Structure formats: structure tokens, C-alpha cells
């Protein structure tokens, strides 16, 4: 269920991207301030709806701990934070993976429009081509979500792990 939900969630953002790239980005050279302002207002509107309509659930009380770390002050808490975050090699590897993996996409997102312009492509043509790449992603979003639901990690019967057999 969660995979299909995220598939549809992704579909919404792809449709937003398609609208932006097909109809709006061609005006970005002359009206970028108004475009930024409009996007900010739409985001504010959506975020406020979430803030006012999302209700917290009922949670059990937080268990009492004998030693309250907050009593030691800022530096004591900072010490605990750094010890818990940066002394376990597994988490250091995980965050190195997430950071470098994220950095692999960042240059494309930041410079693809500049690259297109350096090749003599207009902003409008760039937007149209990006639109078609998003059409492909949109077609894949829901089927990929279904596959995640079918083969997700917690129900995974790994062919490479004999203990899962």
C-alpha cells in the first residue's frame, strides 16, 4: 500500500513539474520574480492546509529516564549528540552513501538549463523536452509503486541470503 501511495504522491509532483515545464518555464527569463512569488504563495497555501488539517494521534507518555541529559546544559547535550551520531561506523557509511548519492543528482538539477542554453537551446524547447521526460516518469510511477509493495524489504525473500530461505 505504501509503495502505491508514494507512486501516486510522486505522480502529483510530476504533474506539477509537467505544468511548470510546458507552460511556465518559457516565461522564466522575463518574469522569474513573479514565478518565484507565485510558487511561494502556492507552497504557503498547501503547507497551511496541512498544518491546520493534520491532527496528532494519541501517543503513550514518554518513559521517564533516570538521568535527564538536559540537566547538563548545552555542551553536555552536544557531546551526547556528537557521540551518538558520529561514533558508529555503520551510520557514517549510511550517511556518506546518502550524501554522495544526493550529490550525484544535484549538478544535473542545478546546471542542465545552463547546459541547454550553452548549446543554443531556448528555454521553451528545454521545458518541452523535460515535459516529455516527466511523461515517461509519470507512466512508471504507479507500476513502480506496485512493485515496491510486492517486493519491499520487510516481505523480502532474498535470493542472495540463505538465512531468508
Amino acid at each position, binding site marked *: 500500500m505504501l509503495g502505491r501511495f508514494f507512486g501516486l504522491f510522486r505522480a502529483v509532483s510530476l504533474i506539477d513539474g509537467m505544468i511548470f515545464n510546458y507552460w511556465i518555464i518559457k516565461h522564466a527569463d522575463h518574469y522569474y520574480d513573479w514565478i518565484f512569488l507565485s510558487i511561494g504563495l502556492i507552497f504557503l497555501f498547501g503547507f497551511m492546509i496541512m498544518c491546520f488539517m493534520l491532527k496528532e494521534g494519541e501517543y503513550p507518555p514518554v518513559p521517564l529516564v533516570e538521568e535527564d541529559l538536559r540537566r547538563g546544559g548545552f555542551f553536555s547535550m552536544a557531546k551526547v549528540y556528537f557521540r551518538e551520531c558520529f561514533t558508529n561506523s*555503520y551510520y557514517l557509511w549510511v550517511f*556518506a*552513501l546518502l550524501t*554522495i548519492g544526493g550529490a*550525484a543528482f544535484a*549538478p544535473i538539477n542545478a*546546471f542542465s538549463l545552463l547546459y541547454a542554453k*550553452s548549446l543554443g537551446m531556448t528555454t521553451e524547447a528545454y521545458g518541452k523536452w523535460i515535459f516529455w521526460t516527466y511523461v515517461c516518469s509519470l507512466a512508471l510511477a504507479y507500476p513502480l509503486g506496485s512493485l515496491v509493495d510486492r517486493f519491499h524489504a520487510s516481505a*523480502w525473500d532474498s535470493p542472495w541470503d540463505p*538465512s531468508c530461505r
Partner: protein
Amino acid sequence: MTNSNYRLTYLFSGLFAAVSLGLLLVVYHKFMKMGGPNAYVAPE
């Protein structure tokens, strides 16, 4: 520094992707040693 040579963008993205693939293999190996998908126990 690159004199607006934006083709290098894809080279650097590819390098980062290759490094992250290596990191993924390391993390996957450690993850499987901690129980894998069916018996994972988070490190203390």
C-alpha cells in the same frame, strides 16, 4: 573554474554515482551482517 563547460556536470554526476554505488555495496554488506531484511537489529 570550468569556463562554463557544462558537459563536465555529467562527468561529475557519473563519478558521484559510481562512488555511491561502491558505498551502497559496503552498507549492504554491513546491513546483511546485522541480520538483513528479516532480522535486522540496529547497532547500539
